[in-house]
């Protein structure tokens, strides 16, 4: 009896503890979502003036905000494509071939992952300014791709570690050339790793503040727009857009994840 009570108590304590952690994680989200329905029109937009959906309508009149969101998405899409292409091919190449200097490439790959983002940001700033590359869309894409590539490679590499080389040999023995084998055998097998890496690259890009802050020039991405508005108080339409982005991401992930899950189940 005593032991049982102890067990129940332990379990209850566990549930309470985990719930508190989740409350901690979601509290600012609740603040943001609530703020998007706040009818207040005076800075800093904190005190509650009643419920309204106005901000979701007004959002579409705020062209600067919408523009920054468009910029963020464009950068994220191009970054994802670039990083996924370069990273996937590199991961396969590094797995299949032995060559000199491989450990150097490996070492360089870890740098953007472990180094504080601010160091990556300022080092790219000095490079772009030293080589007179005008800061803007191009430098943002180059910078984002730089920190995204390693994550794509690590994801694909994790998938490659369980890869059976003989299926490629079989494909070549049956007369397929290298490119056909890559397209029809290697890439489909690696697809989940590539998709995971691409998703990570995309989310890292849309959320990036620190690196973008140094290489943006006159271009304002959505996070930089938020940064700019923090001094005077974040307006409810920014909260509304954030809420919509969060909803969009959740839907996107549910769709892609369930699709992936279905595919895996189907194969089995």
């Amino acid at each position, binding site marked *: 009896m005593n032991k049982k009570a102890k067990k129940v108590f332990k379990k209850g304590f566990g549930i309470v503890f985990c719930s508190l952690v989740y409350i901690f994680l979601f509290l600012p989200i609740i603040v943001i979502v609530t703020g998007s329905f706040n009818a207040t029109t005076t800075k800093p937009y904190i005190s509650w003036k009643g419920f309204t959906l106005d901000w979701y309508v007004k959002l579409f009149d705020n062209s600067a905000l919408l523009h920054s969101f468009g910029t963020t998405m464009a950068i994220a899409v191009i970054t994802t494509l670039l990083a996924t292409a370069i990273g996937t091919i590199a991961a396969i190449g590094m797995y299949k071939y032995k060559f000199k200097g491989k450990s150097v490439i490996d070492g360089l790959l870890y740098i953007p992952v472990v180094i504080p983002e601010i*160091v990556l940001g300022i080092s790219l700033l000095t*490079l772009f300014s030293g080589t007179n590359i005008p800061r803007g869309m191009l430098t943002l894409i180059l910078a984002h791709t730089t920190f995204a590539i390693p994550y794509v490679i690590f994801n694909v590499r994790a998938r490659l570690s369980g890869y059976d080389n003989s299926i490629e040999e079989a494909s070549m023995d049956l007369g397929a050339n290298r490119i056909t084998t890559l397209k029809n055998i290697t890439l489909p097998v690696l697809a989940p790793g590539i998709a995971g890496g691409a998703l990570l690259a995309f989310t890292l890009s849309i959320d990036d503040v620190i690196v973008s802050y140094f290489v943006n020039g006159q271009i304002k991405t959505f996070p930089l727009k938020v940064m700019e508005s923090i001094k005077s108080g974040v307006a409810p339409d*920014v909260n509304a857009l954030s809420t919509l982005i969060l909803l969009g991401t959740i839907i996107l992930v549910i769709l892609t994840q369930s699709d992936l899950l279905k595919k895996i189940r189907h194969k089995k």
Partner: protein
Amino acid sequence: MKKLSRHTFRSNTLPSMAMVGPVTLWLAFFVAIPLVYVFIMSFCSIDESYNIVFKFTASNYERLFNPNYMQIYGTSILVAFLTTILCILIGYPFSFMIARTKWKHKALLYMMVIIPFWTNSLIRIYGWRTFLGTGGWLNHLLMTLNLTSEPIEFLFNKGATVLGMVYCLFPFMVLPLYTAIEKLDQNLLEASSDLGAKGHTTFRKVILPLTMSGVFSGSIMVFIPCLGYFFVSDILGGGNSDMIGNLIERQFQSGNNWPLGAALSIILILITLLLVKLYQKAGGDMDSLGV
């Protein structure tokens, strides 16, 4: 002989160059060269109109020993250390419970750690300011409950900065811990208890050593970024808990002394190198830092 080498060239050298070439060039141009450039710049100076003068000087490094700066390094290390410890103390039991629960929606528990991070981190940190500020939700609640008559200032101190850092970096602790704990072999735990070990002995002698790798990689992924997250100490610390990141940011933006900022960045690079070396010495796997 010649034929053979041409064969190796076509079947090995050429495809490997084609596949690994792009990433090599990319990393050389956008990681290696910029860092070397920062290193060179740290030995330069500026003239009256803030132009960089490429003439060797160690004056930036001398300035790093300025007592005001020393205090900021102290704050940085303290904040990063407290953040890491709190992330371990909260993250370990939390990861343990969500990784070993028998609930059928376990995947959901894991996803719920990641979901908040799909909202921009700046606006979430600002959310904390809205919650904790003098006109914020918490003070409102406390005053309605008559627990305080005057609003309490929770913000603009080191505590608020640590809270924001823990908030931003918590998942980087949980993810490696979750992976390490999920891999634990149930048989080992049963064997330990069959052999008469009590709960805490099993934890100390079996569970903890087997999951230490997760604690190490989590700590690296929390401590190092923490030093550079200048916007957290800006928004929540309000200038009262400036860290190395804030110092660097100022040199490159408003201060316009890039060589000094470069020298400050070298400190961060050295700290990173030192910690990564320690991590590898402790048997840490570099690959588990990535995902």
